[in-house]
């Protein structure tokens, strides 16, 4: 069904390319294993291990604090991996036959983009299974909102990956790219350290929940001890220019009711960046095909 032929939008093509990505995902157990092992490593081992030293961050346990970060890490990995597979697909895979078909490339790219974002959302949801063990009180609505945020984050990162992949000739640089992109985006997003506030406090988590909420409203986040976070200026700058910081902050807000950046900026970046990068990704694929001409 062609929905907007002039723009090259065909719902059937978008749907079949999305379905293809999903079928590939469910048949690739290594991706699922990777997401589970990343979650266990970061959330359980680092969360509880480092949490023993850091105690509390603004009244949250360290494992609770990094939960949105671990979700973000899974989204980053799977979205970028899905996008970078474009290189393989273009040189030796199905994409060669797609390119010579009459199907509009914009729809093909959107199908891949939504497929990558859907997989990233599923992978990102894996840490949510650990919520009962982390003592996070959340509602079905919060979970649903978190899934929406993850999907938009997935669209943005998959699109970003497609833009890179459309310029890559081989996979030889894949390791460098994944390390050189995922790690800075992840570490400089406030995923594992707070941007401001009090850490290392003791006893706040033992206060009954209603009283704890009341203390938070009064701006009290620690009872015994603790120290104020003072990040070096260059780290602050890098965190503030990293779009993932805002996506992660919104995720933290919907899951923990706790944000460190202006909520309006979180919403603008999360829901504004995804369509912009999607358009740029479609343009990059078009340019990749034009270069071949």
């Amino acid at each position, binding site marked *: 069904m062609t929905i907007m032929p002039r723009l090259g939008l065909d719902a*059937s*093509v978008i*749907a*079949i*390319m999305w379905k*293809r990505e999903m*079928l*590939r995902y469910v*048949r*690739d157990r*290594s991706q699922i294993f990777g997401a589970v092992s990343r979650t266990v490593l970061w959330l359980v081992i680092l969360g509880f291990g480092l949490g023993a030293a850091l105690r509390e961050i603004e009244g949250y346990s360290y494992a609770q604090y990094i939960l949105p970060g671990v979700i973000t890490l899974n989204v980053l990995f799977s979205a970028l*991996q899905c996008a*970078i*597979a474009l*290189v*393989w697909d273009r*040189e*030796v*895979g*199905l*994409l*060669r*036959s*797609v*390119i*010579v*078909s*009459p*199907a509009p490339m914009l729809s093909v790219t959107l199908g891949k983009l939504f497929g990558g974002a859907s997989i990233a959302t599923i992978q990102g949801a894996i840490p949510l299974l650990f919520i009962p063990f982390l003592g996070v009180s959340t509602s079905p609505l919060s979970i649903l909102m978190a899934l929406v945020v993850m999907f938009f984050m997935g669209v943005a990162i998959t699109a970003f990956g497609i833009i890179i992949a459309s310029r890559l*000739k*081989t*996979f*030889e640089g*894949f390791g460098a790219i994944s390390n050189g992109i995922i790690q800075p985006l992840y570490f400089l997003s406030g995923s594992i350290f707070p941007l401001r506030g009090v850490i290392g406090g003791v006893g706040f988590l033992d206060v009954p929940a209603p009283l704890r909420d009341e203390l938070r409203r009064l701006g009290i986040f620690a009872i015994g001890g603790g120290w104020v976070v003072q990040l070096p200026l260059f780290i602050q700058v890098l965190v503030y220019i990293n779009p993932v910081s805002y996506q992660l902050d919104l995720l933290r807000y919907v899951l923990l009711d706790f944000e460190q950046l202006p909520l309006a900026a979180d919403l603008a970046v999360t829901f504004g960046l995804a369509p912009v990068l999607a358009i740029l990704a479609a343009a990059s694929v078009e340019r990749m*095909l034009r270069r*071949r*001409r």
Partner: protein
Amino acid sequence: MVAAIVASDVSYRYGDRAVIDTLSLTIESGEFFAILGPNGAGKTTLLNMLMTVTHPRGGTVSIMGHDVVRETAAVRRALGVVFQDPALDDRLTARENLEIHAVLYGLPKAERAAQITQALAWAELDAAQDRPVRTFSGGMKRRLELTRALMHKPSLLLLDEPTIGLDPQGRRHLWARIASLRESGMTVLMTTHNLAEAESCDRVGIIDHGKLVAIGPPAQLIAAQGEGAKTLEDVFIALTGRNLFDESATGRDRLLGFARQGGEFTR
């Protein structure tokens, strides 16, 4: 009847090197035509132009009366393509690969399932339709590619080295299928390095350094070459020389090499 392919003074350059040099060629509807040439002669570039992936820098190319630059969608609908290496998704089943093709070519939804079943039967892959393509032999993949290329009922079939890597049984099976297409009146254009196979074509065109150096029925080309030539291979060597034509590894070659060294997880 409109000619299947008309190329007029077509040129394409990579930097200073003319890959296709003012090449003109007409292939009539219903013809079985082979393009021959040493490595680097320009066969792939010419095929890419026919597939609308590469645009000519000079001259014009039309397929079934449609210009490859201005009427891309019409040209693509008229073409069925079988690549030298399978362009399949090997994690999907044969049926799923055909389903994608059916959607990409806009086959009516109500007819898709029946057409896919028919295509699988034609390729004798009914029993393997729900197996992932990665479990298929080279011959099975080639049959699947051929039947996929025919699913949307193209007017012109492009075969890039169709029998490369196939065992004798696989080759015989594929030729039987191609023979049935010839009988049905389909235009078939293939590239090949197997000159014995090319001798069964209606006409062959030999390309060297981007130019068409000979064209005609194989028997006529052999006769025109004189007493020293007994086969098409003799004609080919006489026209293109005995020097080896070495090419650099392409991005595709390097990618496959990387995958073989353990990078395949990145697929």
